């Protein structure tokens, strides 16, 4: 099954480009560490999922690029083409001359309806190229105007036009300080709207990725490109082909569907966090060896203690005693309760890995049986030169604090009525803001009371 990616705004298009580059570079690599047959199967599955063929043999990304100003798309197109290894279709982008001004209302209420037909036309064309459409993957930030506002609008359109398809939104959360002043307003409006039309939101926080770049990747002068490349690596580690548990011998044919089934048992809980281990500079890879028990021990504690990376984990945090039903208010402080978790293992010796630690019932709410709350996907094919790598996609309280912080700051600003005239000018009134705050306070409450 194929996935159509929709890249929205500057962030969406910059990250999208890095994602396709990472996918392509991974399948081109000779570090598969597995049998030739396995490698070919992986290769074919990835190609089917993310690329179409062209006469020249150069893979063409299954993507639609949308932005309200031309510079970023133009760069993405030319960078891909000059790589020689893959490219974007020359007919799959839509842009305008003047951005959205960081104004969610402008993106949602003005650009959205105005350009709906043109954008959905491109999406339809890409969808038609798929022999079997596995769903949509949108990439956007929620801080600006286009990715956030137009992105929310397009997601709604996707839902209306493809009611039975899966929609996964990759949403980038901005740095706490120093990107856009109205980012908290834009975030509140985006998240509440996406909650209505998307199946799940897979979140990356700039602050967290920045720390990974600084402390794990040892990058001195961190650029957005560095941040985007880490994000792309993490996304690739989720979306490259794997075998699912009951999937038989071939690679999973319905990755988005499988993801939703594993992680989103209840529509009130759609926020997914992502962790990947190990992460290190490429030139250190050759000198490092890892054991699965070591990696998984760290990954499990990252889940329990809500750590962003494998350094600086708080090992003091422990799950509550198994078997006792504890009201959420009495749970150990800082313990991250999960609804569902998915672990993805890639590389050497995956079949002998013991995942018992993740099946511990005390990690989870009591709604699902532990065997239903936890899923594992595996492939012996190593990813992106890492001999062994593990990813965790988690529907848990990972994002509770950051969400609460964003809503708090937005509410603080809303109470003073600052910047509201910029939104009402384009048709988003105070009542709409209140509805969005209510929706998110509900989500916060739900996750808090797990």
């Amino acid at each position: 099954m194929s996935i159509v990616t929709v890249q929205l705004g500057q962030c969406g298009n910059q990250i999208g480009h890095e994602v396709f580059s990472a996918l392509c570079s991974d399948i081109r690599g000779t570090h598969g560490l597995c049998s030739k047959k396995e490698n070919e199967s992986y290769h074919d599955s990835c190609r089917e999922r993310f690329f179409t063929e062209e006469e020249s043999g150069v893979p063409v990304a299954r993507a639609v690029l949308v932005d309200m100003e031309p510079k970023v798309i133009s760069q993405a197109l030319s960078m891909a083409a000059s790589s020689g290894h893959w490219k974007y279709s020359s007919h799959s982008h839509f842009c305008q001359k003047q951005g959205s001004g960081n104004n969610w209302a402008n993106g949602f209420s003005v650009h959205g309806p105005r350009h709906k037909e043109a954008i959905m036309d491109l999406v339809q064309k890409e969808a038609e190229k798929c022999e079997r459409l596995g769903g949509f993957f949108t990439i956007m930030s929620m801080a600006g105007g286009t990715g956030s506002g137009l992105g929310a609008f397009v997601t709604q359109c996707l839902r209306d036009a493809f009611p039975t398809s899966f929609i996964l939104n990759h949403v980038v959360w901005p740095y706490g300080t120093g990107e856009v002043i109205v980012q908290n307003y834009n975030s509140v409006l985006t998240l509440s709207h996406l909650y209505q039309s998307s199946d799940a939101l897979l979140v990356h926080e700039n602050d967290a990725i920045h720390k990974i770049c600084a402390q794990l990747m040892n990058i001195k002068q961190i650029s957005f490109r560095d941040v985007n490349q880490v994000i792309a690596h993490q996304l690739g580690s989720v979306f490259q082909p794997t075998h699912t548990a009951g999937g038989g011998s071939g690679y999973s044919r319905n990755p988005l569907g499988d993801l939703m089934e594993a992680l989103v048992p209840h529509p009130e809980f759609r926020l997914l966090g992502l962790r990947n281990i190990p992460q290190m500079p490429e030139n250190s890879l050759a000198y490092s060896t890892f054991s699965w028990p070591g990696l998984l021990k760290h990954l499990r504690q990252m889940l329990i203690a809500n750590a962003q990376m494998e350094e600086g984990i708080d090992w003091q945090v422990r799950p509550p005693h198994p078997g006792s039903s504890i009201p959420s208010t009495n749970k150990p402080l800082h313990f991250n309760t999960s609804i569902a978790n998915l672990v993805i293992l890639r590389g050497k010796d995956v079949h002998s890995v013991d995942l018992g630690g993740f099946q511990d019932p005390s990690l989870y709410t009591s709604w699902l049986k532990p065997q239903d709350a936890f899923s594992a996907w595996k492939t012996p094919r190593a990813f992106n030169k890492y001999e062994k790598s593990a990813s965790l996609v988690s529907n848990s309280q990972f994002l509770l604090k950051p969400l609460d912080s964003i809503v708090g700051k937005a509410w603080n600003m809303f109470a003073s009525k600052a910047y509201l005239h910029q939104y009402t000018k384009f048709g988003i009134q105070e009542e709409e803001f209140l509805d969005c705050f209510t929706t998110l306070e509900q989500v916060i409450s739900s996750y808090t009371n797990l």
Partner: protein
Amino acid sequence: AVSLRFAVGQCGNQVGFRFWDLALREHAAINKKGIYDEALSSFFRNVDTRSGDNGPDIYKGKICSLKARALLIDMEEGVVNEILQGPLRDVFDSKQLITDVSGSGNNWAVGHKIYGCQYRENIVEKLRKTAEHCDCLQCFFIIHSMGGGTGSGLGTFVLNLLEDEFPEVYRFVTSVYPSGEDDVITSPYNSVLAMKELNEHADCVLPIENESLFEIVNKIHQMINSGKLGSTVKQNSLVTSSAGSAKTLQEKPFDAMNNIIANLLLNLTSSARFEGSLNMDLNEISMNLVPFPRLHYLVSSLTPLYTLADVNVPSRRLDQMFSDAFSRDHQLIQADPKHSLYLACALLVRGNVQVSDLRRNIERLKPSLHFVSWNQEGWKTGLCSVPPVGHSHSLLALANNTCVKPTFIELKDRFMKLYKKKAHLHHYLQIDGMEQSCFSEAISSLSDLIEEYNELDATKGGPRIDPSRLKIAV
């Protein structure tokens, strides 16, 4: 996205001239192949002049003849004529000029009421024609001074007109405010009358004070002549330079001062024109920096003022650039943002600067700055990969900060000194359409604005009480 510029009056046109000169040089340095691209198109049309001045616009391909997207308006001919005889004569055609001969006599009412009325149709017609050539008009820029008659009066008339004709297009105004020693006695009247118009019709105003420009020019002059850095300063990197001559500073201080404003305007639009990892368009500036419609006065600072010739730029020097942007002596008005209250702050960085450099410096400087309680992390940032000519990196800071208040209070005081004695009032009141109420309304508008800043200042340092959140039934 394209912007149209209106240079009104003597000061406006002198600054305008420096702007077009620097813009051409910037694009020439970057656009080596002579191809007419999106970046150029934001300032210039590309006209096929082989068959004369009325040739068609060329939207792609090689540059033929660049014409500035501008209207030059002056009620005296001196400055505009000089421009048309100088090296930029081919950048403007006669259809872009509106001139008269006798000037406005340093009288806002003459500029606004008499010339406004007289030239309205002419201006609208030329405006519409110029706008027709823009396939996506985003912004109007007006450059003028506040203290005289044409820039101040006719300039604000044009501002009104732009709102009437193209209400959706952003109106940015760069206003040069008169100093206390200004030799035009009636400059306080002209400025306050103009302020009312700016309050009501501008989206964003960048106030500039000659005193600040002069101090910056002197500082550079001293740096170069002190012998400490003299030979190691890259001549073409001076924020005051045109042809890169240090002599300019001494002989023609106004040229040097005007270059600073021209650089400000260039840097302001750099991220909209050139690529970068975090673009900042003009409509984002007004969106993020104007929390309430009337509070749209932005204090600007440019760093560095010059670059030393040694190529090695350790990150300490980069950090110094950020520190300087917040120092009193780099602001383009007499203001001290560090000791006043920030409503919002934007940092537009050009050159080889990455997000980690930005973050490090924001973290470092934040503790010494006061932000209003509802915008504690009120930073808007942009990263443009292309540095200005002669620099490896540069920073433009725009602050919506209560430190503009003293400028306005002084202006009000100077106005009241004259007004109480009714000095020179008759020159204004004898103009058709001018009444006493024009003055009382204008000073009232300014007082209200000052009061808004006072109220904000009163919250500074006070207890922080976060409003209680919505409660959800569990």
